């Protein structure tokens, strides 16, 4: 994937770059409005990650520019503003998704992957991880060509893991991904343990390897064995 990260906060930008790099991903950066405009006029990207408040201009203006030069890049807006107006404005102007700060990098990556998948969709939208094959359109999971029966949340969780393969995903990130960030679930994440246990069991019983493992009690990781 080729990504453009438009973010003026250096620390945050670095974090994003360092989370995305590897796996053949290329990350370009823009630190303000003029450089963002320059980059989008010069190069093509799979997805643009953009902060709405930029030095030198409004992030929404970047969206308008993209529309003006008739580009079809996927755009994910990152904003400190939870404002619904921002959200609606951004989505009206052609942004594909909206992520509110603070966010988990795993959530960011899952959203970017979803956007890229949708944009690159060419007849078949299939996500493959070794013997696990997911038809995103039909929302079907097959292991060794055998249909796996998952609940909606187990399905979402599996996609979340595959989007972030090789990365540790925290329990908080999982809870927010499945239940939304507005729900205050307190710090009791026992139910996530049960949830993941069920998913692992189903996958293993269907004949796949046990790719998901618990990490330091903080979270879980799906990786190649």
């Amino acid at each position, binding site marked *: 994937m080729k990504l453009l990260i438009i973010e003026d*906060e250096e*620390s*945050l930008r670095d*974090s*994003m770059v*360092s*989370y995305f790099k590897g796996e053949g991903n290329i990350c370009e950066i823009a630190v303000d409005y003029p450089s963002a405009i320059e980059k989008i006029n010069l190069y093509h990207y799979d997805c643009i990650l953009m902060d709405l408040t930029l030095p030198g201009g409004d992030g929404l203006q970047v969206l308008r520019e993209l529309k003006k030069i008739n580009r079809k890049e996927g755009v994910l807006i*990152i904003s*400190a*503003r*939870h*404002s*619904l*107006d921002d959200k*609606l404005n951004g989505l009206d102007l052609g942004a594909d998704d909206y992520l*509110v*700060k*603070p*966010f*988990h*990098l*795993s959530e960011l990556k899952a959203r970017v992957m979803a956007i890229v998948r949708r944009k690159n969709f060419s007849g078949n939208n299939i996500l493959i991880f070794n013997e696990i094959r997911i038809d995103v359109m039909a929302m079907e999971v097959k292991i060794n060509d055998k249909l796996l029966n998952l609940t909606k*949340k187990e399905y979402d969780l599996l996609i979340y893991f595959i989007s972030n393969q090789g*990365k*540790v995903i*925290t*329990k*908080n*990130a999982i809870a*927010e991904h499945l*239940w*939304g*960030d*507005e*729900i*205050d*679930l*307190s*710090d*009791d994440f*026992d*139910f996530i343990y*049960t*949830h993941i246990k069920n998913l692992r069991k189903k996958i293993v019983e269907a004949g796949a390897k046990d790719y998901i493992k618990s*990490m*330091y*009690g*903080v*979270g879980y990781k799906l990786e190649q064995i």
Partner: protein
Amino acid sequence: MKLAQRYNRANLLTSSIILVITGVIYYIAIHFILTNKLDKDLVIEEKEIQAYVLNYGKLPSPGDFLHQKVAYVKLGNKKVNRNFFYDNYNRANEKESEPGRTLITSVIVNGQNYQVSISKSRAESEDLIRLIFFITLAVTILLLVSLLLINRFLLQSIWRPFYATLNTMKAFNLTAKTDIKAQQTNIEEFNELNIAVGSMADSVKKDYKELKTFTDNASHEMMTPLAVINSKLDLLLQGEALNPQQGELIDEIYNSVGRLGRLNHSLLLLAKIENKLIPEQETFNLKDLIVEKIKLFQELVNGKNITLTQNLLDKEIMMSKYLADILLNNLLSNAIRHNYNNGTITIDLNKTELIISNTSKDNTLDQAQAFERFYKTPSSEGMGLGLAMVKQIAGLHQFDITYTYQDKLHIFCLTF
């Protein structure tokens, strides 16, 4: 006591007292003047008698005229003191007596001492006093009545701008976008009042807006550092060879950062609801949304082995779906979070109300404070904003939310 009433009372009371005192003084003065005049007339008469005696060496004949009587009595060796006094005046051919004034004096005619009494009727002067008294009384009553009317109508119209200003002040809403509109008046004081009130409202609004902007900006500015902390933690976790102790530490930092972020978002949302900056309302079936929420929370309910009973009827409702979402999230997550294992939750929805009741490890909440911001039971791990937000959302849509504790059940009732 109303201003006009108070003013009227003072005004009328002083007016009456002053008028009564003036009346009394007036009466005494007129009485004194008239008596003085009578006495002078009596003295003139006395002098005429003395002049007659001197000229003719005899007494003038005693007379009984219409308004005057003269009588003589031989005194011999007795002496009489000259003095004036009031007595009754009997008219010749009338039985009734009138008030009179008499002068007793003495005169010597040819060595013989005579007592002379000259009497005059006071009837005319009494009539005069009575007339003056009635005129004064009439004027007094007229004056009081006109004062009363002036006070009533003039005061009312004069103070009208004041009451108008008072009403605008009462209706003043800090969060509303309307300005205070002053009523035009040609009374300087009220104009000044209007200007003062107007500028006060403006400055209060300005301060409030600045504070709001500040809070808003501060809350937003906090999000970026939080995002940085979160992302650095995410990266830290990817590193190799963390031990479980370090993992636990990171976990705790995550939880705190998460809470801080949610706290910030909640505060911003509360401010937004207060300022009525909310998305458009739409009509939808609340039952569908509740069913959706129950599905969302299913794993949590199952995790605690909670028995969830639902009696849901269709209910079309007009409200912001986004806020309805938050309202249900808060009520349901509370009902689950504060519940104990194998507890119960009951959700009833009908045309008029939504009732969510649940068992809990906590005893009754403080009824008065349950919906206050940052109120929470000691055992609660939440932020204490959930119910405050529920209350705000309910209030915004003119719904009523109540909390009761009955038969060990916490019952939240939302009345549409």
